[in-house]
């Protein structure tokens, strides 16, 4: 594996080929905020809170640090006026869905996000996919998945699988960045309702 030299926040950082900016930064002890990233899971790039400025060959672009592979002589800035503004906006959008999320509070303070900026539409889920991907990739049970799309997208447990597997696992609950109770709630709903998918469709 080739060593690659790049700069993050003015520091020379060494990384291996194929690493992402996020991994390189973490190895060097440089913090980049993440929401949908999990070290056991494949990169997903859903939340974009890890957005950084990456400069190569004289061009600066905004990239998702958890997806973007390191390259030679890349210059990365993890904080800048632009980056902060984007993170603030992302947080404000997420807050419209999960206004009281405890997991977001630190970031909200850091970036001065205003939780009342956008009209609330509390669905509690910010579509990070952590619960869904963890169940699929780590546990290989596929008990929870997404249904519908766009603004109506939500998680849904398959009752037949959930009733067998979830009680003794529940490892996805604490992963949720907004509220662990969200998964718990949908899970219970799946168990209670005998026609969960039909019911959902007709709502």
């Amino acid at each position: 594996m080739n060593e690659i030299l790049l700069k993050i926040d003015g520091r020379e950082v060494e990384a291996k080929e194929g690493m992402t900016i996020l991994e390189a930064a973490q190895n060097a002890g440089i913090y980049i905020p993440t929401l949908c990233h999990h070290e056991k899971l494949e990169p997903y790039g859903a939340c974009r809170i890890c957005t950084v400025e990456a400069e190569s060959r004289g061009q600066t672009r905004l990239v998702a640090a958890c997806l973007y592979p390191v390259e030679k002589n890349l210059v990365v800035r993890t904080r800048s006026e632009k980056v902060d503004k984007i993170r603030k906006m992302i947080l404000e959008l997420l807050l419209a869905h999960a206004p009281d999320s405890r997991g977001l509070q630190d970031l909200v303070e850091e970036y001065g996000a205003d939780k009342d900026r956008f009209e609330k539409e509390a669905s509690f889920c910010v579509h990070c996919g952590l619960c869904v991907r963890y169940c699929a990739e780590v546990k290989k049970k596929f008990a929870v998945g997404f249904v519908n799309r766009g603004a109506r997208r939500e998680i849904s447990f398959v009752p037949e699988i959930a009733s067998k597997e979830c009680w003794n696992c529940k490892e996805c609950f604490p992963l949720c960045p907004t509220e662990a109770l969200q998964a718990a709630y949908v899970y219970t709903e799946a168990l209670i309702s005998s026609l969960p998918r039909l019911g959902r469709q007709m709502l």
Partner: protein
Amino acid sequence: MDIARVDQIIDKHNSEASSLIQILLDIQSENHWLPKEALERISERLQVPYTRIQHIATFYKAFSLVPKGRHQVHICMGTACHVRGAQRVLDTLQDLTGIKPGETDLDLKYSLETVNCLGCCALGPVIEIDGKIHGEMSPTRTADTLKKYE
């Protein structure tokens, strides 16, 4: 739809996971909706997790997870049809079928859906039943047209 027929359709596509959407489309067009048993069978035979199939089946509007009627009635509420009186045609349709847009009647005869412009505004107001266009609809003509579908 019986499971044997679902199996036939899966066989036609050589049980390939990459044909998942095609299989769903085939079942949808034959059966007008995707019953849970069919999805479970597909999941089992294609070795695709049920959550994934559910995600796809709810993602595309072409699929329905609830029973649909034998006849798909689409009424155009686009601008041109609207000014030519689509609302009155819609009212007539609702009266005759007893259902609102997005619904299916208990006899599974009709499913009603509104659309915005079918691309033949000069014929407005337009309704489309099972893919066939019926133009220049008035309340009376709507009633006559609907009678042709059993």
